[in-house]
């Protein structure tokens, strides 16, 4: 009697969410694997043709897909470095005993709240007008020009804007990490005569490893999956020079109407994302220092 009752409550508490979750995530995931073995144009009336692993063979030879893979990796590596470096620098600044630290923290976090789509549009104008103006005024038109129309520089523009969006967010995580470092450890090192640089490298940084793990995980996966900023800032252009993974998949499916091939790409995308993030978490977890 009591056991039966327990089961009833269990069902009542968990099943509503499980139904929604299964409908939205699990079933589409399974259907997606199935679709990746077919050739189909997405029109319900047209037949799906089973092609086995052909889609996967085709995507391996797809020049544009390989190019976008390379661009995505480059973008991710650059963004992860700049976001974490700037985020950590911000965190160190606003946790020091400077009076305006709180106000600065509030302001630095602001861009993260504005959605990626809108940020991209804002920066389109900054690159178009302000950068050109700065180039004219300062004479440094090798640095200040509209990056977005230059195939070589557009990707850096994307890194730049994405860093602007994420640095404040990552700063918050590093702040939480810094505040978790016990004061007496810092004090002890001061008494022992450690220089600020030694203190940072030998004490602060090792004790920040948990925060670093999380920050790397978040920046890595969000950089790899970037879409919104990509869409509104460059739209993949000029001449596909900034068409990253997520956008390439979207264009293959909904742009070119290659549903099967596009879905096969999406599955490969998932496998890569999973492999990278799991490896990264595994490696940094191992290096965390236990207090």
């Amino acid at each position, binding site marked *: 009697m009591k056991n039966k009752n327990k089961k009833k409550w269990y069902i009542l508490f968990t099943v509503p969410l499980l139904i*929604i979750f299964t409908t939205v995530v699990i079933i589409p995931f399974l259907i997606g694997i199935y679709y990746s073995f077919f050739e189909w144009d997405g029109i319900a009336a047209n037949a799906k043709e089973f092609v086995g692993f052909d889609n996967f063979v085709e995507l391996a030879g797809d020049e544009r897909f390989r190019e976008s893979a390379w661009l995505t990796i480059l973008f991710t590596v650059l963004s992860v470095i700049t976001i974490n470096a700037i985020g950590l620098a911000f965190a160190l600044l606003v946790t020091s005993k400077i*009076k*305006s630290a709180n106000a600065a923290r509030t302001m630095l976090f602001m861009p993260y709240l504005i959605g990626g789509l809108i940020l991209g549009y804002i920066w389109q104008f900054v690159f178009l007008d302000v950068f050109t103006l700065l180039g004219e005024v300062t004479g440094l038109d090798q640095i200040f020009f509209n990056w977005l129309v230059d195939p070589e520089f557009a990707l850096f523009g994307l890194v730049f804007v994405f860093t602007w969006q994420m640095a404040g967010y990552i700063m918050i995580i590093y702040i939480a990490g810094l505040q978790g470092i016990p004061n007496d450890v810092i004090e002890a090192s001061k008494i022992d005569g450690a220089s600020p640089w030694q203190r940072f490298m030998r004490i602060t940084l090792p004790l920040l490893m948990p925060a670093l793990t999380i920050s790397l995980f978040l920046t890595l996966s969000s950089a790899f999956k970037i*879409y919104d900023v990509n869409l509104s800032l460059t739209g993949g252009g000029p001449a596909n020079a900034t068409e990253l993974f997520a956008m390439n998949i979207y264009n293959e499916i909904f742009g070119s109407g290659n549903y099967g091939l596009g879905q096969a790409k999406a599955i490969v995308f998932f496998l890569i994302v999973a492999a990278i993030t799991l490896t990264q978490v595994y490696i940094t977890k191992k290096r965390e220092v236990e207090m």
Partner: protein
Amino acid sequence: MSRTLDFLKAALLIVLALFFLSPIYIIIVNSFKDRQELYDNPLTLPDSFSFQYYVEAMDKMNFLSAFGNSLYITIVSVVLIVILSSMTAWMLVRTDDKLSMVIFMVFIATMLIPFQTLMMPLMQFMSTLTNTLNIPMYNTLEGLIFMNIGFHSSLSVFLYHGFIKSIPITLEEAATIDGASKFGVFWRIIFPMLKPITATVMILNVISIWNDFLLPSLTLIDTDLRTIPLSTFYFFGEFTIQWNLAMAGLTLTIIPVVIFYALAQKHIIKGIGEGAVK
């Protein structure tokens, strides 16, 4: 001496932060300028504050309708996510068996799936549900809310799960002996204790649902269902050349975010810090 140095440091930090936010300043000042003024110098303050572009942008973006849709979707989704995922997480933590562990593991594992992997089959499945079973999933705000719950449940369950594990079970046992039902125990005793993590879950989900573009762009077809990111996207496609109008539109979209931030600033920063450490 050290006083002046402190002051200098404080001032420098603020200048840095202001410089960081300068793109937002640029958008706002230029939304008041006419064409000539804008091209003369995009960095100066406007000669006069005319709101003509705001009126026009509001009209062309259908801003009030988009704002209403965004607000409705975000609030209902977040409330339901909080209710459903806290209840689920509690049961999973307090029922120590294989099934609960497997369910929890599935939630965690799916966090690795990018949205792009699910979007096409999801749309196929949702339109099948709409067409064959007459469940209005596709092209309705409620359908989008349903999908939002599904996509945001993993992270929310994960955060609640971690928090609930740290609550001693003795409190609940005492209440159960007093004859309270599971439902009563959860809502009267447990849920109030979850406040800090509920704040985190709410903030993370509000930010991500409010700003979401791709999912709404795939599910919502009718123009009068558009959310703010959607209407910005279509508006921008049409008026890129008219930058002052475009910037008035962008400023409009930032206003709700700034208000939200001003009201809940402390909770937001605390919530995000805590959410990440978990």
